[in-house]
Structure formats: structure tokens, C-alpha cells
């Protein structure tokens, strides 16, 4: 396919190589070397000052036998459990509604997308105030005699953070769904209509399966985001209360740059990446399907 489109390639190997050289040099220094180094580091005990010591898989064993490993895993899954279903449902619903109503679609898409450009630090500041025990949200909840300790109750702190991230990222996913909806050919809907399918049937039997590619993309993005969450728990709750927002990236950061254990930190980063890969693999295996037009 790539031949047919561009025809023959221009010759002149030297020029071609010269043009890509800046990229290659930088990639070797800031990608290839660090990539290899992280695996070497993971098998060392090193405080970044005195000489490093080879310890084999000890770093990994230490992490897996640490209570914090299960706590971080539990927190990550609590986040995923709230964030992914909620965010996918809302964004699909919004995208579908915008698509159906057909009134000012770009206005709505842009409004929902706006939070996406906001820095994590900025909305951590805003929401730690809005959701505080005397913040605006609780002022409204007081009307129904409720006061939710969003960030101070260890049982719900991680879910509260998930809510903020839904606010931030929902518009992005809605846009992906919207593009997916627009890509569904009308002829398929015609066929369903002729077959006498009801609106609900059409939605679940035609629309949802046709959006498979969008679902897979969103799930992969959402998993990467969930496993790598850092700024919000670091700034809003500092991993607490009682380690209830202690995440893997948070742990990696603390271990490496506060406890100065570069080896263990690298091992943690590798574990974090592996969890991310594992979950993406599961999505690819069980959700991704070839959709035949």
C-alpha cells in the first residue's frame, strides 16, 4: 500500500540518512540509552552517589512483598472501576446526543473538550477547593443534608480523583466517539430500518458494534492514563489519607527522588509499564474485533 501511494522512492541514501540524523542522535541519548539503562538499574541497588551494587531480582521481590504493592494495585483498580465505566458511558451518551440533536455540534464538542487543555496542576488547585469540606459542592449538598468528605475519607478519595479526571478527559473521548458515529455509513441504518429494528435495537446491535474501533482506542488511552496517574493524587491528597490514593507513579517518584533508591524506582517503573501493557493486551484480546462493513 505504501508503494502504490507514493510511487518509487527517491534515491540518494546519504541525504536521507543525513536528514534523519538529528532525530537518531537525540533518540539514542534520550530514548535508547535510558531504555536499556532502566533494565540494568532495576537490578541494582544504588543511591545515585556511591557505586551501584548488582542485586539481581531483589528489587522486584522487595516490591512484590511490600504491602504498598497491593495497596497501589487496589487503588489503581478502584480508579479504573470508577473512571472507565463512568467516562465511557457519559462520553458515549454525550457524543450520541450531539450527533442526534444536530444543533451546534462544534459548540458542544468544544465546550466539553475545553477542560482537556487544562494543566493537571491548575485543576488540582480548582477542585481541591470546590470539593473541600466547606467548598461549593458541599454547600449545594447541604441543601439535601449531605456533606461528602471527598478527599479526606480514605474509602472515597480515589473515586473523587477519578471524578475530576472524568471532567477533564470526557470531551476528548466524546469527540472520538462522535467521529466514530459519523463514520458509520447511513446504508447500514437503512438496512436496519427496513428489517424493522427499533431505536434501542439499532443502538445496541448496530451503533455499538460499529463503534468497536473507538471503544478500543478509548479503552487503551484510559488504561494508560489510569495506571500512570500522578499529579492529582500527589497534589490534592499526597497519596493519603491512609495511602488510599497511593499510586504506582507516585510510589516510583517517592522511591527514586525522595528515598534516593534509583534501582527500586526503576523496577517500579518497569512494573507500572507492565501492568499497563497487560491491561492493554486484555482489551485487545477481548474487546477488539474486525468490523465488517
Amino acid at each position, binding site marked *: 500500500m505504501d508503494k502504490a501511494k507514493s510511487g518509487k522512492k527517491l534515491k540518494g541514501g546519504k541525504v536521507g540518512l543525513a536528514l534523519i540524523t538529528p532525530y537518531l542522535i537525540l533518540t539514542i541519548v534520550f530514548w535508547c540509552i535510558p531504555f536499556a539503562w532502566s533494565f540494568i538499574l532495576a537490578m541494582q541497588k544504588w543511591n545515585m552517589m556511591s557505586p551501584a551494587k548488582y542485586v539481581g531480582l531483589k528489587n522486584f521481590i522487595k516490591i512484590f512483598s511490600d504491602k504498598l504493592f497491593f495497596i497501589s494495585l487496589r487503588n489503581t483498580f478502584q480508579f479504573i472501576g470508577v473512571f472507565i465505566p463512568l467516562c465511557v458511558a457519559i462520553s458515549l451518551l454525550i457524543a450520541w446526543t450531539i450527533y*442526534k*440533536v444536530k444543533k451546534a455540534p462544534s459548540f458542544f464538542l468544544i465546550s466539553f473538550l475545553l477542560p482537556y487543555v487544562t494543566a493537571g496542576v491548575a485543576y488540582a488547585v480548582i477542585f481541591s477547593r470546590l470539593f473541600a469540606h466547606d467548598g461549593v459542592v458541599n454547600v449545594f449538598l447541604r441543601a439535601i443534608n449531605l456533606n461528602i468528605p471527598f478527599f479526606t475519607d480514605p474509602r472515597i478519595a480515589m473515586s473523587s480523583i477519578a471524578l475530576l479526571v472524568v471532567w477533564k478527559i470526557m470531551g476528548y473521548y466524546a469527540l472520538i466517539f462522535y467521529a466514530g458515529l459519523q463514520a458509520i455509513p447511513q446504508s447500514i441504518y437503512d438496512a436496519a430500518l427496513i428489517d424493522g429494528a427499533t431505536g434501542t435495537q439499532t443502538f445496541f446491535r448496530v451503533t455499538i458494534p460499529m463503534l468497536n474501533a473507538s471503544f478500543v*482506542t478509548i479503552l487503551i488511552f484510559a488504561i494508560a492514563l489510569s495506571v500512570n496517574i500522578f499529579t492529582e493524587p500527589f497534589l490534592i491528597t499526597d497519596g493519603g489519607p491512609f495511602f488510599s490514593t497511593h499510586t504506582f507513579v507516585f510510589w516510583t517518584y517517592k522511591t527514586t527522588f525522595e528515598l534516593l533508591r534509583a534501582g527500586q524506582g526503576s523496577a517500579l517503573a518497569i512494573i507500572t509499564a507492565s501492568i499497563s501493557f497487560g491491561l492493554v493486551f486484555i482489551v485487545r484480546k477481548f474487546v477488539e474485533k474486525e468490523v465488517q462493513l
Partner: protein
Amino acid sequence: MMGKEKIKPGHKQMNKMMQYLVLCILLLLALLWLYPYIWVTIASVKNETDITGSGLLPSKPMTLGHYKFILSTAAEIGRTPFGRAFFNSFFISSTVTVFVILIGGLAGYSLAKHEFPGRKFLTNFIIFQMLFPTILFLVPVFLVIKNLHMIDTYQGMILPFVASAWAVFLFYQFFKGIPNDLIESVRIDGGRELLIIFRIMFPLSKPIITIIGMFIFMQRWDEYLWYIVLNKKNAFMPMTNLLAGYMKSYGENLGAQMAGVIFLTFPIIVLFIIFRKSFTRGITMTGLKG
């Protein structure tokens, strides 16, 4: 059931009433989504006690004191003023953006339009690179920067991000679609390769440059974790880190935090509104291709 209106296939004509109701709900939701911005804008000019208090309406007159504090008073008591941090953020983000486009453009062009040993391998390698999360690189890249003696420098916060596999890939895809005749006609006239790139390829790829530029700039502007690792010096501190510092260490000064949020978010919102078309195109492009 459907009256005389043209049937839009797949969309049963919604009841008019129903449609307006849905539209209203959608509008309310959009407002809810925008509410935090409205709130923070008002909070930034409220009196300190009005921000911490539970009242929704201000009880004391509005003030620009918080802005004055973060811009000048902070410096007098030995903190980095926001103006300086604003410059740092802008300088770092725009430098990275320019380099990502230059380096990525050259590399993408080379992969798309040149034949050289290892081209196939490099193309696959760039796709391979995009698979790995950045957390994997946090510790070793910090050590590389440390060994290059670039901790606490601008270079240290710029160099690790100027080679973007994602940008190369987008350029590569774009240039593949440009016919070779165009390039060859210039070549026959004795045009040099760099001339082709800067006179033809880059101008042609304006849409893709805008997308890459927008996303890279926004990413750098919003960055936090990498900067706390790579820089401890107040003079070079980007705005995200300064604001986080206000939040972590000077928790009492809420008005200053809100004014800081305005500085951090509004430039990027203005950019977003100007380039919204490229932005949404960028998202749908990556969304559809997966």
C-alpha cells in the same frame, strides 16, 4: 408516524419537544463543564475570606490584590514571581515545539521520500517507540541529564522532549501522500534537498504542523512531574511547578493560587479556541487510526 419530512436514515425523527428538552440538558451539562473556569475567575478577584468561606456571593469588595501579590509582592519576600515563571514556561514550551517540528519534519520526510539502508527498520522502530509509557524513562533520563550536567538548566528541561516519535510518524504519514512528481520537478531544476523541504514540504504540511505544534506546546505547558525531577532552581521554574509550590507549601494563600491558575490556564485556552479546528482534527485522526 414520520409525517412528510424526509426520513433521515437511521435517525427516527425526534419529537420537537423532546429535541428541545435534550438540547436544554446538553446546554446545562456544557455549563456544568465550564463552571470551574467561571468559578476560578471570580475567585481570583474575591477577597481571601470570601474564597475560604462557604458563601457563594462575595461579602467584601472585589480585589486585584492576588494578582499584585503573585506578580510583584512574592518577589519581595523571596519567592519566584509569576511573570518569570510564565516566561520560563513559554520559553521551554515554544523551544521544544519548534525543535519537534523541525527534527520531526526532516525525519518524516526522509522516511517517506528517501531510500536508504535501514529505512524500513527505522519506520517500525518509531512505531515501537510510541508503545512505551513515559514513566519507564523518568529515572534513567534524569540520570542522563545529570551526567550531562544539565540538571537545573533550560537545556535539561528541553532536550529530552525534542525528538518526538509521534511527530515523526504524523509527518511520515502526511509526506507519503504527497506525489513524487512535485519533488522531482524541483530536483531536475537543480533544487537542493533542503530547499525542497523548506520551500515545498513544510508549507504544504501546514495543517499537520498546526496539529503537532498545538499538542506538543500544550503538553509541555501542562507538564509537571518531569519538571520537578529535572529542576529545583527557582529562576528556571516553569509555572506548573511554581503553582504547585503555592499549593503544597503555602496552602493558606488561596487567592494567590486562584490568580496563578488564571495565568496557567488562560493562555492555553486562548490558543485552544484559536486552533480548535486543528485540535479536534488531531484527536479524531488519532482516534480513528487507533
